[in-house]
């Protein structure tokens, strides 16, 4: 029983990091209708900013908060001066632009900080607590709590605030939104800024575990995209649940399904995706989009 609980909590913790990135992708998608493949790279850049600030002697928590604020502006600036050139055109072109952005940011980080692994201090202590015979690290629990808090905030933002409503309106129909007096440009910038903030959170959560390198988020991004599709791109709660599901099922399948084992566990999320997409193309929690013609 101890092992089982251990695997579940560890899975939730790993899943939470996928979830932070997935939430950022959902946010951009909800605000602009785009999938931002550069999200992982932006998260790494944010983590480097926090690391540099911390290196200047600024306490870790403050450094992270400062990095979060800087990331918001970076995200907004990227939207305003780069992505906006592609908005309103073919969405595929914009997707390719974000892939280019990913390569650019990764290259930039490598150029400035090299590919050497940098040690990033953890927000949470290395201590552990005992739960039902399992040894659970405070870090795992902390990661999970942070993600739950963010998920609830986001859900409240989209469903309970004017800004959230405006963000959704801009995504669904920019032209109509503009006619209704919504400032489309500003909302797009805010959407990207908020997404960059989420990426920053994901970055500082994962950096202590993987050490800071320019390619740190590459595999997490693949899982995050999987979570987006599985959970449904329109639902913050959906993607978090999906990311957790991926993390936990991966762990359990590796240990309890001999056929899969640790070697094949990377395939688990993708098998899940295929199954879900066949049954529910909009994802587990997504809404079917209906267009009146």
């Amino acid at each position, binding site marked *: 029983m101890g092992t089982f609980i251990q695997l579940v909590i560890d899975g939730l*913790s790993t899943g939470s990091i996928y979830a932070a990135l997935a939430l950022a992708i959902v946010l951009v998608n909800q605000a602009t209708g785009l999938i931002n493949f550069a999200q992982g790279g932006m998260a790494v850049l944010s983590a480097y900013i926090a690391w540099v600030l911390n290196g200047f002697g600024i306490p870790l928590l403050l450094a992270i908060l400062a990095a979060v604020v800087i990331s918001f502006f970076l995200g907004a600036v990227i939207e305003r001066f780069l992505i906006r050139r592609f908005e309103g055109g073919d969405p595929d072109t914009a997707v390719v632009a974000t892939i280019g952005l990913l390569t650019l940011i990764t290259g930039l980080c490598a150029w400035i900080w090299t590919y050497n692994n940098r040690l990033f201090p953890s927000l949470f202590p290395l201590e552990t607590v005992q739960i039902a015979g399992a040894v659970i690290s405070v870090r795992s629990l902390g990661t999970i709590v942070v993600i739950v808090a963010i998920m609830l905030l986001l859900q409240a933002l989209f469903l309970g605030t004017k800004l959230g409503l405006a963000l959704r309106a801009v995504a669904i129909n920019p032209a109509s939104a503009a006619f209704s007096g919504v400032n489309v440009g500003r909302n797009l910038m805010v959407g990207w800024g908020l997404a960059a903030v989420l990426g920053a959170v994901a970055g500082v959560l994962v950096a202590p575990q993987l050490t800071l390198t320019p390619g740190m988020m590459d595999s997490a991004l693949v899982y995050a995209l999987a979570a987006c599709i599985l959970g449904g791109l329109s639902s913050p709660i959906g993607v978090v649940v999906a990311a957790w599901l991926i993390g936990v099922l991966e762990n359990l399948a590796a240990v309890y399904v001999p056929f899969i084992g640790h070697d094949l566990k990377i395939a688990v999320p993708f098998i899940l995706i295929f199954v879900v997409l066949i049954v529910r*193309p909009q994802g587990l929690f997504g809404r079917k989009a209906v267009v009146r013609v």
Partner: protein
Amino acid sequence: MSTNRRRMRVASVVAGIGIVAVLAAGCARGGGSPDSTDEGGGAAASPGITDESITLGITTPLSGPTAGPGTCTVAGITAYFGARNAEGGVEFGDGNTRTVEIEALDDEYDPQKAKANYDQLKSSVFAMTAGLGTPTNRAWLDAAIADEVPQVLIMTGDPIFSNQEESPWQLGFVPIYQNEGEAFGELLAGSAEEHKVAILSQNDDYGEGYVEGFKTAIEGADNIEIVKELTYEATDTSVDAQLTELAGSGADVFFNAMSITPLVISSLQKAQELGWLPSWFLPSNTSSPTAILEPGGAAAFPGVYTVAFAQSAAAPTFAESEEGAAFLEQLNEYADYPDVPAFPHCVWSYQIGATLEEVFGNMTEPTRENFMAALRDVSGFTAPLMLEGSTVDTTEDGQPAVSTVQVQKYNGRGYAPAESWDE
């Protein structure tokens, strides 16, 4: 376009990326394919060498996840020959003094790119050397044989490169994985106590080689029992589940045959979280004291052992020694590498530079054939920064240039030689 269609399209893009990721995980092993032949050797001087200079080619990962060790492979040898060139050049056995130029290309640890890099370099360089990676080096093994281009002193522990019949134009530099695994096994088998061993290994030639060597050495030792054996993929972001499972085995010795730096750190941390405190065996390329053991909190374990043939630049005493200080200075000056390297590959490729200089000194003709003959005739050569007891010896078929390794035990700062388990 309706939102639904857009979503479907996005879904298909993502699914496609997923498939690529799965394939990439499965295709860790590269295969070589015979390629068009190119007239390589000749009676006159071979390509890439004049009376004044010689050019060496390198293909190695300079970007992507393996870029850390990859950039280190270029930095070490560039530093070595940078310093030599500044002194006027390297003396060759044919009486000429030549400067040594390095041409390094990025293969991103991708076998296809490595092959393309080789094709680009083969007619302009004298020999290919120092590049890191088993699948990448294997990708152009056959082509190098067909073209008669030396592919020597490369950084892979795959035994195929040191087998003269299969690889007449090749020679590995670092000990084959089996040798390192065997050294651990011998140390443990010599212990007076009973031991239960848990093994976690990378699911490719690297991990298999280590485990194979270890098992060979403990064959017949009745005080050793392997209680649990698991694997992981080099693409995994977490091995927490494996550690949890292995901790349950109650092993007192853990052989972690892992090549991915962050995963070793998180393994050390995870084991402590689980309250599992075995003795550790770590491969030579993932046992850096400052880059891995300190952040992983390795001092909590009764013993952390590694095998090495070269000094660790990350050890606290390194910079205090004359050789170490010179190395760090040259690395900064000639290779633009200001940090103390966290990877051993910088030191290794520096030693490759020294080994090549030794070989150049014995070359009587500026040809690739003559170079290979001189290369296979180095014995008992002590390259700079070698640990006592290790030497470069290229005369034994089936073994790479360096085949003797020392088991070392972590002492909280750096490493000290470990003659036996119970000391």
